[in-house]
Every structure is written in structure tokens, then in C-alpha cells.
């Protein structure tokens, strides 16, 4: 029997999806701002963060309301517990996108940077992985969620390559510009986006199967 309050679970899912799509948009736009040196775009991304923050608070209120008023059981409990974590991770992704936009503006101020290291490639993969994590949640597809757990390593590897290509294996910093340091921050932000996408997918696996795959080696 479908109950009238089940609509509120649908609303909660919709709000999480909205958060995810906005976070992905912010990440894509922030990367474009880096590549094109587009300050206006970077500013736009920074302005988008407040909306995601508000959505996170709304999601938390919806979770608390549902837990308190409607006595959820089984998969509904798993969804509500996971939703709290997913909302937090999506909000952190938006924060990281905002950081990327901020670093883009610093680089732009110092003049165009010809060599963006592996950041564009890392950005493409980070967006692909986040898209996969969101699709896993939206479609209830556990295979997509498990794929995210594997693909996160690709982002980690590119982040390491960025660091090594700049500092080398012996830590030579003489050829490193201030803008390159900003690029390393951007690379690190993308690596964190990968981690948060992985966290989202771990929660999706928990929702769908009840299996807790966090901290698995």
C-alpha cells in the first residue's frame, strides 16, 4: 500500500538529485573557468554554492521530519540514514568546485598558464565518476555504484602525476611558479571530488543491498 507520506521520500530523493546535478554543474563550470581563464564564470560558480548549502539543510530537515513523524522501517531507514551522508558529500563537492573556481581566479590574475599539467584530464574523469555516482543513485544501479569505487583510483593516480610532474621525485621546487601551486590545489580538489563521489556510491550500495562497504581494502 502506497501511503501519502511516501511522497516525502520522493521529495527527499529529488532534492538529493538536484544537489548532485548542481554540484556536477559547478565542477564542470569551474574546470572551464580554469582552462579558459574566465573570471566571470568562476564568480558564477562561487555564487552557486549557497544554493547547494540551502539544499543540504533542507535535506537534513526532511530526514529528521520523516524519521520523527512517519516511523520508517527497512529500506526506508537505510535511505534516510544514507541520505544524510550523501547530502553532506554532495555539499562538499560543491565546496571543492568553489575552491577550484577561486584558484582559477588567482591563476587568471597572474596571467595565462600554458601548461595545465594533467588537470584537464583529471577534471574530465572526476566529472565522469561523479556522473556515474549520481546515475547509480538515480537509477538504483548497484553496478554503477561499484564501478565508481574502482574508477576513483584513476583520479588519485592523476593527482599524484600532477604533483610528481611539478616537484619531481627529489622535490625540486626551483621551476615551480605560484600558479602551478594553485594547479596543485585544483588537482587536490578534484581528487577530493573523487573521494566524495566514492562515498556517495558506498551509500548507494548500502541503500540497495544493506552492505556496508566503507573502509574496505
Amino acid at each position, binding site marked *: *500500500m502506497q*501511503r*501519502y*507520506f511516501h511522497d516525502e521520500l520522493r521529495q527527499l530523493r529529488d532534492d538529493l538529485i538536484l544537489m548532485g546535478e548542481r554540484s556536477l554543474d559547478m565542477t564542470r563550470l569551474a574546470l572551464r573557468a580554469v582552462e579558459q581563464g574566465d573570471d566571470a564564470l568562476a564568480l558564477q560558480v562561487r555564487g552557486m554554492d549557497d544554493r547547494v548549502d540551502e539544499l543540504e539543510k533542507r535535506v537534513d530537515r526532511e530526514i*529528521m*521530519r520523516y524519521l*520523527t*513523524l*512517519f*516511523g520508517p522501517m527497512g529500506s526506508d531507514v537505510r535511505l534516510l540514514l544514507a541520505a544524510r551522508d550523501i547530502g553532506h558529500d554532495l555539499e562538499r563537492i560543491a565546496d571543492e568546485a568553489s575552491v577550484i573556481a577561486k584558484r582559477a581566479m588567482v591563476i587568471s590574475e597572474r596571467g595565462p598558464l600554458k601548461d595545465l599539467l594533467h588537470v584537464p584530464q583529471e577534471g574530465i574523469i572526476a566529472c565522469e565518476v561523479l556522473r556515474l555516482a549520481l546515475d547509480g543513485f538515480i537509477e538504483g544501479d548497484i553496478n554503477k555504484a561499484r564501478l565508481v569505487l574502482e574508477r576513483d583510483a584513476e583520479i588519485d593516480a592523476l593527482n599524484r602525476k600532477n604533483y610528481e610532474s611539478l616537484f619531481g621525485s627529489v622535490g625540486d621546487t626551483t621551476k615551480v611558479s605560484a600558479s602551478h601551486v594553485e594547479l596543485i590545489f585544483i588537482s587536490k580538489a578534484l581528487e577530493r571530488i573523487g573521494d566524495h563521489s566514492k562515498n556517495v556510491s558506498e551509500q548507494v550500495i548500502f541503500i540497495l543491498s544493506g552492505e556496508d562497504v566503507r573502509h574496505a581494502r
Partner: protein
Amino acid sequence: MNPSASRIKVQPATESEGRKDYIRIQDFGFWYGAKKALDAISLDVPEQRVVAFIGPSGCGKSTLLRNLNRMNDLVDGIRHEGDIQIAGRSIYDPGIEVISLRRRVGMVFQKSNPFPKSIYDNVVYALRIMGVTDRAILDEACETSLRKAALWDEVKDRLNDSALGLSGGQMQRLCIARAIANRPEILLMDEPCSALDPIATGKIEELIHELKAQFTIVIVTHSMQQAARVSDRTAFFYLGKLIEYDTTEKIFMNPTQAQTEAYISGRFG
């Protein structure tokens, strides 16, 4: 203490925006003989909303409910002070006929009480008492009421069967249909699901959710989960006093009074 000082106002909330208060209970006290059962209760019920009365046994919630259509008038040795208004008029106004009041304020009891008659005769019983004999009008009222009570599809092919052959949940919905057939403005429900299994309870709760589009509903329930699920506002009573009255979300998520918090979290007593 100034009685009006005990009046508990609900903060403006989106759930009641634009809705006028349909029932106004003002400084209402009530006695069974020398025993004071209600002490200076003041609360407002907005139209087309569900208000739940909760509290431990003996707190006065059913007594207050039964005063809303003056059911307690049937008890010897009762008296009251203060007032109850429905749609702006006191239910104790000498010009108010109690029979007419009870038509406007229907009631559904804890134990379903269908008459030993057919399903059809149960639903149209009050209309016949009022002198309606036109078969077409009775048929229309029967179908409309059973549809509103979410029972039509289950009984439409056996309207002449005895109502006593229905399941517990169906009987309770039949009693709701019987109350609706009177075209009341307000529905009072006194523990309407206490004798029902979870599925039948779910159907009654769904029905309450549907019915509030047309009726103002006051429900007494021992189940806090039920109050949380079905009501827009909740009133918590203890020892004949109204301890707290607010939106249901506020009462169950962040009540103001320590006694309310203790009761809803199971730490009471």
C-alpha cells in the same frame, strides 16, 4: 491565575496559513460531579485540518472531544465553564439544538458500531431519520459516502448484505461513511484504529488524510506514531490541563515543554 493567561497560541505556521479557526475552545473547564476533568483549556482548531489530542489515560483528551458535540450532556452530574464555539457560534447557545449540533459534528468511536442492518441501511440511517425517503437521493448519498470512506469498491456488489459480515477495518470505514452521510462539518474520532490491524489502520489513516480536504477533524489517539502521521497539529494533555499545543512537527521534533518531551520520548512516569 488569569484564565486567559493559560491560553496556548500556536505560532503562525504554513500548515494553517489562510485558514480560519473553525473550533474555538476558550477557558473551558469541565466536571464530572466534584471531579474536575478539564482545567481552563483554550485552543483553536483550523478548518480542514487534522488536530490530534494525545496524553496518558485520564488526561481529559476524550472528555474534551466528547464535549465538542455535547456528547457529555448525556452524563449525570456534569457541568462546565468557559465556552466552545464552532464557526463563530457557541455550542451552548440556547438557540442551538443538540441534535442539529451532532449532525454537524459527526463522531467515530473506538469500537466500530454498525447497526444490525444492511450496509446500505447503515449508511442512509440518519437520512431516513431526518425524513428523506426519495430512493434516488438515498442511493446517491450511499454511494458518495462509501466512496469518500474508501469502501465503495469493496462493497458495491453487496450493499444489501449485513454490515456485521464486514471485517473490522471495513466496519470502521462503514461507520465513517455513516457519519459522512450526514454531511457534517467536523469529524470527531475517538481512537478509531485501536482495534484494527496495521493494514486496516493504514487505510483509515489514508482516509483521514483524504477527508481533511472537506472536513475539520479532531482525533484522540493513544498512538503517538499515529498522531505524528495523520495530524497537522497536536495537543498534549496531562491531568486535565493542556500542556502544549503546536504544529505536529514542532511537538514531535522539538517540543517547548519538558513534560511533552518526556511523554513523546517514552520517559514519562
